[in-house]
């Protein structure tokens, strides 16, 4: 329990209604997906209940966040802020910590149509922002975590690839400026906003602090609280009078596909052809989506229930599917559409591919187009066992993504043979190119049973082996390095980068109150 005077100091800031220290309410924050894996990796019994915060506060403004953070510094209480909060990185790690739930800060502050950016608060979710952007003919980059998660959280604090990455990049690349409550309670505004009140760039005037703010990985909420973010927008390839319209009843909704959209699933017999085609398709900027998974994953992408996915698998999908790319040509005009679709076919033919949609092997319904651009397809992977998590997480070249997929297969198969993880024949990957160039994100989604100790322990061992493989095979830096131990693991062979992160942490968080959780603890001053 917090001391009475400390609790009251927080209560004065947010009001009685917006603070709680009830154990049951606290447990709803301590319980997180993947805690069972992290506890298994620590050698503890796998379980989802992690560290229970001493209190939860619900601020409504930047000023309230600032006051909370200052009070934390005064009373030596650590804090961790989060939005929708999915994963152990959202939770606290310090037994003397409070959780700052940013749910009440949910405004879209500004949509600047001409300069193509939006300024948002933490609890605006992807689906909401997307809905409000369509009337302007704009869209944003939504991270693969899903439509119910926060773009601000991803843009400021994670890497965040998504299904539209070939077109929109990844979250970390699209942040144009932030309002940031530093760990000591000072407010810092980065980017052009502080200079002229417009958020069109995240850098300057003067030196850029984006590297300090988030660097490559983001600080996972371990370096203060972001209360506003300006994010880059993109042209939405549909007429302005087109409306997001659904009809029907769950789970068979219908969705109005914009006029010049077409999906392809290009299938290539060998990885080499796949790789060459992926390079060329990305380089030619023909597709909004270029995503790859296992054949089992394809069964999940374009079905609406687990039963349907399983039936599709056993109906012969696997035999007809090799290395495929789900593509979405989404054009503004007929001419653009015809040009792009023609180019897709030419590239497919050049590398000896076939289109699984054209051949009727898989049939995306209109609603699956909608789910694709709303970043809902990643969630389909949860259908198999209510749970999955990913290993690796490379963001390097397309060739590196393929190499990683190939190397991973035998390791994964070993754990499949033990019966502790889902059987995708070791082929389960998620690859997406990004920024229409030669780069690709790759991770290996893996199904496990969170209610089985054996499965959790098995997955944890598999994860450790994958991390070792990253180093031994020189597979590049993962996009998901969480906590001091994992940073140390990779830093040893990567010029001890973590020492620099620790210096940043120490400089910005002199009292060590911003819960490092899945970031790093600060360097002690010598």
């Amino acid at each position, binding site marked *: 329990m917090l001391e009475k005077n400390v609790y009251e100091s927080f209560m004065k800031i947010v009001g009685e209604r917006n603070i709680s220290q009830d154990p049951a309410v606290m447990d709803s924050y301590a319980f997180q997906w993947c805690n069972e894996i992290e506890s298994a990796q620590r050698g503890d019994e796998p379980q989802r209940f992690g560290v229970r915060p001493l209190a939860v506060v619900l601020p409504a403004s930047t000023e309230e966040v600032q006051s909370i953070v200052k009070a934390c510094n005064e009373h030596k209480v650590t804090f961790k802020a989060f939005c929708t909060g*999915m994963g152990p990185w959202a939770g606290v790690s310090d037994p003397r910590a409070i959780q700052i739930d940013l749910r009440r800060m949910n405004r879209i502050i500004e949509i600047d149509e001409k300069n193509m950016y939006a300024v948002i608060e933490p609890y605006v979710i992807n689906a909401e922002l997307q809905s409000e952007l369509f009337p302007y003919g704009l869209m944003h980059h939504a991270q693969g975590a899903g439509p119910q998660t926060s773009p601000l959280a991803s843009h400021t604090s994670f890497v965040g690839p998504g299904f539209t990455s070939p077109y929109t990049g990844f979250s970390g690349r699209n942040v144009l400026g932030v309002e940031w409550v530093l760990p000591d309670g000072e407010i810092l505004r980065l980017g052009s906003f502080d200079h002229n009140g417009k958020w069109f760039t995240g850098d300057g005037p003067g030196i850029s602090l984006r590297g300090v703010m988030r660097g490559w990985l983001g600080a996972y909420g371990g370096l203060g609280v972001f209360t506003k973010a300006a994010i880059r927008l993109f042209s939405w390839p549909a007429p302005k009078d087109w409306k997001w319209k659904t009809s029907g009843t769950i789970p068979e909704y219908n969705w109005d596909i914009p006029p010049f959209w077409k999906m392809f699933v290009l299938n290539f017999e060998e990885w080499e052809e796949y790789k060459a085609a992926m390079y060329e398709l990305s380089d030619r900027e023909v597709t909004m989506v270029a995503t790859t998974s296992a054949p089992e994953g394809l069964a999940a992408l374009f079905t609406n229930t687990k039963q349907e996915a399983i039936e599709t698998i056993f109906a012969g999908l696997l035999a007809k599917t090799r290395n495929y790319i789900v593509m979405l040509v989404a054009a503004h005009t007929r001419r653009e559409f015809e040009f792009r679709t023609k180019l897709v076919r030419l590239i497919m033919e050049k590398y000896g591919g076939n289109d699984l949609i054209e051949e009727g092997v898989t049939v995306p319904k209109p609603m699956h187009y909608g789910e694709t651009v709303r970043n809902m397809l990643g969630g389909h992977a949860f259908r198999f066992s209510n749970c999955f998590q990913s290993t690796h997480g490379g963001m390097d070249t397309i060739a590196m993504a393929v190499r990683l997929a190939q190397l991973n297969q035998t390791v994964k198969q070993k754990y499949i043979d033990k019966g502790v993880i889902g059987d995708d024949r070791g082929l389960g990957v998620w690859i997406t190119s990004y920024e229409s160039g030669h780069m690709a994100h790759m991770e290996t989604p893996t199904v496990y049973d969170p209610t089985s100790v054996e499965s959790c322990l098995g997955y944890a061992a598999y994860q450790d082996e994958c991390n070792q493989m990253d180093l031994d095979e020189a597979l590049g830096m993962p996009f998901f390095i969480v906590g001091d131990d994992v940073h140390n693991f990779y830093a040893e062979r990567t010029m001890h980068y973590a020492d620099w992160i620790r210096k940043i942490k120490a400089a910005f968080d002199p009292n060590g109150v911003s819960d490092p959780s899945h970031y790093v603890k600060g360097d002690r001053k010598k």
Partner: protein
Amino acid sequence: MTLGEFEDMMDSCVRCSKCKFIPQLVIQSKRFSSICPSIDYYNFHAYSGGGRMITANAYHKGRVELTPEMLDVIYRCTNCGGCEVSCKWVYELEPNEAIHEIRVAAVEAGAGPMPKHKKYIELVERNKNPYGEDPEKRPAWLTDEITTNESSSTLYFVGCTASYRREEIAFATAKILNSAGEDFRLMGSDEMCCGSPVYRVGDQKKALEIMQANIEQFKETGIEKIITSCSGCYNMLKVEYPRFVKHDIEVIHTSQLIEGFLNEGKIKLNEMVPMKVTYHDPCHLGRMAEPYEKWEGEKIEVLSQVFIYDPPKPDRRGANGVYDAPRNVLKQIPGVELVEMERIREYSYCCGAGGGCKSAYPDFALWAANERLEEAESTGASTLVSACPFCGTNFRDGIESRESSMKYFDLTELVLRSIGGGK
């Protein structure tokens, strides 16, 4: 089911927050993106479907006790089932079932339900209704112009709210039945509460006694078919009763019955009712109205760590609620223009009254009604229509509190007007 039987399910929540929003494919605006009045009003994660499942799990595992604040978490929920519809888009979890079970556990532990609930349960036991009204006055709405047949095997089960608070619905229903030539009887002062307010707050023992007594009474009087104008009663009689008490009585809601009358030409909608209306799907007539189908089979591991049920388990995702019947009726009323809200059918936003909230947390219930009214107003409709007296009561309170120009009518009232029986 008990909390223990739900443990694996509760352990499987990934805390993704999907339960706070309508199924994400159908989100059309930021303003009307949420599904759960409770998380919208109280904000702490524990007040969401997933959050409640976690607190129930924590209680089951002995991590927490039933503190006053935890009881608020448990009971500040309308039990509307919206969280479950959104959750089941991806997961095989049933948060609404877990919420019900933690309420049952709270009552068994002597901590629940809340004092206001205990009070109305006493009234149900004493007066057969939760309002404490005189049972003899239950049929006070009945006028000489209504004809009943006390030997009929069809019962119009009026329900407590239509009997004592929304008599106009009872009257309109009876008049429509007369117009269609549908023979029916009433239980009059012998009619007992369906048990919904008792069951919803977790007093399963007393709810079961009510269910058994009611079924016994129906059987003794030879009832083969029950008509209900209340969504709460409909849900109890059609969905919950068969889980606990065996019966083969047909249960039908007025919206379905009227649709049938129109199809068969038993009534004619001749009179103009010029108004632009929007329709609110009551939770208990919509997503919660799907019967629990008994399933027997086995769980088979088809791929490592991936299980399916053989034969497939019947889905209970809200797809098969009574959505089309009330709309089909509205569309046939001359002069009525139906416009839809953003949140409809299985992802309709709850009115805020259910689950014992109207009595124990009236501020919350009223706030939720106003949220829904704002959505109704945003359609440009002048009138909100629904098919549940309890929703109607809460909406009328909301309209008064926000001084809205919007009117509220039950579906039966508009039908009565159109057949020439009302103003």
